[in-house]
């Protein structure tokens, strides 16, 4: 029996103003519930555009996005209530403390103060930020900011979590903490959609991978299946280079 698809993308098309090519060119994807779904591709392939549309940040020119049975176009708020987003940039208030950021975003997700404090303290503990919780974010290191950025995206315990390059530019320890925690919440039922340039990380972390280029899906499958289908490749990076080419992108 086929597993339930929690995200269905049908013929998604997007062209930005003053550009000649489609950013997304009839993209079709299906993400199963409980997946850690890696959306991989070179620069300009359409990863961030896809994530932005899935989060309701960017309207598609055409096509449909169905999340957990709800059409994003017709009921965006219902979909937004199910998702958590961890953007590529550090989307935090630098003049607020870690606790104040968690409190603010928790409140925006409709959580009560006690609940935010409980969840926030757990997260601060897990991500080793308890001692710094009352310090302003602008005094944090890159790794600390990246961890808090993730905490803010999951404070409300979303069913589906979108992560855009969550481990970019951070130290190995921070990256390890983040990946381990993501695996933990995935085990408790959170579906994760993740973009990255780090092929080794994706190979170890993801349960499903889709490589897209020029706004289209060019291959998909479990990491082991991708390697199986490309026997001349030693690892996912080789598969990636084989399918997307070795030319440097803009």
């Amino acid at each position, binding site marked *: 029996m086929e597993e339930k698809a929690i995200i269905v993308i049908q013929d998604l098309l997007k062209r930005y103003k003053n550009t000649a090519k489609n950013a997304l060119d009839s993209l079709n994807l299906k993400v199963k519930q409980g997946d850690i779904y890696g959306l991989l591709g070179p620069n300009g392939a359409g990863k961030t555009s896809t994530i932005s549309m899935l*989060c309701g940040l960017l309207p598609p020119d055409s096509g449909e996005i169905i999340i957990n049975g709800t059409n994003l176009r017709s009921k965006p708020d219902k979909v937004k209530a199910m998702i958590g987003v961890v953007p590529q940039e550090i*989307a*935090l*208030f630098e*003049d*607020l403390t870690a606790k104040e950021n968690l409190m603010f*975003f928790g409140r925006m997700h409709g959580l009560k103060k006690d609940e935010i404090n409980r969840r926030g303290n757990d997260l601060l503990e897990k991500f080793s930020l308890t001692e710094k919780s009352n310090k302003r974010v602008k005094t944090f290191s890159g790794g600390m900011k990246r961890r808090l950025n993730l905490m803010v995206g999951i404070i409300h315990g979303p069913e589906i979590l979108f992560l855009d390059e969550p481990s970019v530019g951070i130290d190995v320890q921070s990256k390890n903490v983040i990946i381990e925690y993501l695996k933990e919440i995935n085990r408790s039922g959170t579906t994760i959609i993740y973009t990255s340039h780090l092929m080794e990380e994706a190979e170890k972390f993801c349960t499903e991978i889709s490589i897209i280029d020029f706004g289209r899906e060019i291959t998909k499958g479990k990491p082991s299946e991708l390697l199986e289908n490309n026997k001349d490749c030693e690892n996912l990076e080789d598969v990636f280079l084989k399918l997307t080419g070795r030319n440097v992108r803009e």
Partner: protein
Amino acid sequence: MNKLKAVIVKEILILSRDRAGMAMLFVMPVFLVLVMTLLQDSTFKQLDEKQLPVLIINHDADTFGLKILEGLKSSKFFKITEVENIDKQDFVQKIEKGEYLIGIIINEDATRRIRQSIQLNIQQQFPEEVGQLFEYEDNASGQARVEIIFDPILKSSYKQSILGSLKHFSAMVEARLMFEIYSGLFKDLLSIELKPTSSFDDIVNFDEKYASSGTNKIIPNSVQHNVPAWTIFAMFFIVIPLASNIIKERHSGVSARLLTIAGSKLISNLGKGMTYFVVGFIQAILMLFIGLFILPLFGLPSLQIGGNGLALLVVTIAVVMAATTYGIAIGNIATTEQQSSIFGSISVVILAAIGGVWVPSFMMSDLMLNLSKISPLNWGLNAYYDIFLRNSGLIDLLPNIALLLGFSFVCLFVSFLYSKRGLN
């Protein structure tokens, strides 16, 4: 409601930690209103009550000379210094050096010359057969002369003021002398003794009133202008921290992050607008407090706020709305913080300059006066003038309130259009 509260708490925390922003919103306007009010106080006094220093030599110890002297001395516009035995060159030098702005020399025999001129005129009215009515003095022929020496820096309005006063006193003396001469003729020709008249001064009563709805007469002064003017200026300076805050959120990705949370963007914008609205309101209260209680400590008159509290509240709401929405518009139009702070500050300074904040619009040329009508700061200032000086009611204030609210609407509409810019 909890979401809105969270946004307001967040905005207050961020604003309270922005020392430069707080100084710009609260310290700068207080400093400006104190300095500018004290600075402009003398200018307003010149317009209103400053006495012009006048040096006089009176060589005519008769009715004309004495009346002129008495009249000028009793006028609140002139500070009269009478000198005797001074060389004319020294006298002129005192004006040249700026010790006095005006010098007046009433020449010898002025009264006699006026009298003789009147007699000659009367003589011409009678038929020749009546014969010679008066005995003329040979040494009193020709016109009576009053020399007036002006400091070249003196404004023409002040020249007109002194000339007007002199002509007024001269006309009074001429009338008095004419009456005396006719009285003499009645007595000589008809043996009728006329009773002395009481006064020629108040035949016409010039009843001065201010165009104000109320009964209290509030004189425009430095405080009445500067407090509302710099209050509005301060309120519009909200654009800098507000626009900067919006751009920071956009650049950091917080703005996009909020868009991924159901209903949060609208609440975030509302909460931000409400917080800055309250800040603007606090600024207005602070500035009114300074006008009412602090400026008098510096020897300045207390701010008179009129008797229409509701109108004051409504106008303040309209001005704060215009300022806040202008900040939101700039925050959405500008692409960088630098751009917003430069454009925001320069545009507010220009709108303030043409709007009559720096120089009151009643002192402007026609061109600038017409130009001032495009500035929202001018609409706000005029509305405050209406309340403070003219005791106007809400109905009278509607045009300016409508302009301010219309401006707010346009700003919000532009903000909405620009906020969609990054999403396509």
